[in-house]
């Protein structure tokens, strides 16, 4: 039932003592990183867990400002891997891992997979991106540690995915929810009933994209499986931070590896019990690059009630939104600023823009509306089409998905005074 019973069912007292010990160790390690040195982290005294609230928070911008090595506290030869966010125009966010860090990350992922019922005789198809993105490699290592036959298909190529699922009697898939719905559509169109033709399939791990209970139910109904919600972010390794157990009443967040707070995004004060707030996390075991009080910008609620599964690690609710303007499309994190930089750098378009997100079938679709600059218009359609093509290519290179670019008349995109509404999200959740 448990991969690591001692840790997973540790009493709250024991767990909090372990957290306090690890929090102190984390601060000692972090004090060696130039970024935390400059914040004077060594001067803070931690006597109990609530003392962490006295420490400054770390933001994504801090990670960028500290690029490339400002957050690293071990000699570089001890680092064996890095993962990085996308972003060709801006400075990427880079997270470094020592051998111990990779082992701990793998351990956490394995714990999650075991928790949802995966065992060595399972066949696991990993349909999530490999490479700099943490989703693919993170679960890949966990599945191998567990002893599953692991098929690293990565995303895309729907026909091949379905062929592998059938031929190798795949029992568990890891997939972005929107892609799972696309697979369902493809099967349905081909008249294939997965309950009959992929009879061994029993579970799906849904990650990298916020999704609703309705989406989960659709996937479960169509494939005849159980779907489990996976939460993670690259700054905190990637997947394996919080995961649903078989009771699926919130996601257990592994508190031996992370200390978490739920705060008001404006005041950064802890929210009242049961109140929604921004999730803030501190790594407790990270060696190469500890991060203190990282603002995830993800909004959730802490669940303190005991879980029927017997695990003592507290749960968080399904992520309900963001406290910033980040969008998640097809598992890719996108900030409006990335789009703005491309538009500003392209002659022929104005500064006003609007991003519309829509559901196209089960897929997310992005429309970027930009105004044509009157000074470049020479009367022909072909130069407008060239401009549109250029913008589409450059945006795709930056945000990794292909948006639809709409050229609009000058002055037609209304920008409200004050905080402009740049993103209109009309997606079905």
């Amino acid at each position, binding site marked *: 039932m448990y991969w690591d019973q001692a840790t997973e069912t540790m009493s709250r007292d024991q767990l909090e003592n372990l957290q306090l010990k690890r929090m102190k160790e984390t601060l000692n390690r972090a004090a060696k990183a130039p970024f935390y040195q400059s914040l004077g982290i060594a001067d803070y005294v931690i006597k109990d867990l609530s003392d962490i609230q006295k420490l400054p928070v770390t933001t994504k911008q801090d990670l960028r400002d500290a690029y490339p090595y400002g957050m690293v506290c071990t000699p570089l030869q001890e680092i064996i891997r890095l993962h990085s966010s996308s972003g060709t125009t801006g400075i990427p966010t880079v997270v470094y891992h020592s051998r111990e860090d990779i082992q701990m990350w793998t351990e956490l992922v394995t714990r999650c997979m075991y928790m949802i019922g995966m065992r060595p005789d399972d066949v696991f198809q990993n349909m999530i991106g490999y490479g700099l993105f943490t989703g693919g490699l993170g679960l890949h290592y966990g599945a191998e540690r567990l002893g599953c036959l692991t098929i690293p298909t990565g995303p895309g190529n729907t026909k091949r995915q379905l062929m592998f699922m059938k031929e190798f009697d795949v029992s568990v898939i890891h997939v972005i929810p929107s892609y799972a719905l696309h697979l369902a559509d493809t099967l349905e169109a081909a008249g294939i009933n997965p309950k009959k033709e992929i009879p061994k399939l029993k579970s799906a791990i849904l990650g990298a994209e916020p999704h609703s209970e309705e989406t989960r139910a659709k996937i479960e109904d169509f494939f005849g499986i159980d779907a489990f919600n996976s939460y993670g972010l690259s700054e905190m390794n990637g997947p394996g931070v919080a995961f649903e157990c078989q009771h699926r009443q919130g996601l257990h967040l592994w508190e031996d590896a992370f200390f978490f707070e739920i705060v008001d995004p404006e005041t950064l004060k802890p929210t009242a019990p049961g109140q929604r707030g921004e999730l803030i996390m501190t790594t407790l075991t990270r060696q190469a690059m500890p991060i203190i009080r990282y603002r995830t910008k993800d909004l959730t609620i802490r669940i303190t009630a005991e879980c029927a599964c017997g695990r003592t690690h507290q749960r968080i609710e399904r992520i309900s939104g963001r406290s910033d303007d980040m969008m998640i499309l097809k598992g890719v994190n996108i900030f409006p600023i990335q789009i703005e930089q491309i538009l500003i750098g392209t002659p022929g378009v104005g500064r006003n823009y609007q991003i519309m997100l829509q559901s196209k079938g089960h897929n997310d679709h992005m429309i970027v509306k930009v105004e044509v600059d009157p000074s470049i218009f020479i009367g*022909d359609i072909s130069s407008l089409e060239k401009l549109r093509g250029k913008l589409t290519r450059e945006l795709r290179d930056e945000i990794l998905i292909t948006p639809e670019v709409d*050229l609009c008349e000058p*002055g037609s995109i209304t920008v409200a005074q004050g905080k402009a509404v740049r993103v209109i999200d009309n997606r079905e959740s």
Partner: protein
Amino acid sequence: MAHQISLFVENKPGKLNAVLTSIIGKKIDIKAFMIASAGKFGVIKLLVDEPFKAREILKDAGHAVALEEVVVVEITEMPQGIQDITGLFASKGINIENAYGFSTREKSKSLFIIETKEPSNIKEVVTAKGFNVLSDAQIYAL
């Protein structure tokens, strides 16, 4: 040579009406127009009596507008005349970017409007074949 106005517009109901209303209201006479559509946007081409004035009106209204020279050829014998023109362009290897035509009130007198990028002496090429190429002033007088 005559001038034609090009106007960038989104492909939405009411757009053409708004453009026409804004210039007709300023006493601009529209002789002919055409719409070239490319999906969600398009370009409206206008042949008017006072192209420079019309351009300023549309510019002031915030439009992306351009003015370009076009060959406006008078054709008296239809349909033979139009075939003579297209035959001339074909034999010289001249590409037509856009073209449209209209009939005038005068009997057996039609105008054929041709947009082409090359050659620069297009007017000479056409008049050498005996065609009458109209200027802005001649269109104004129509």
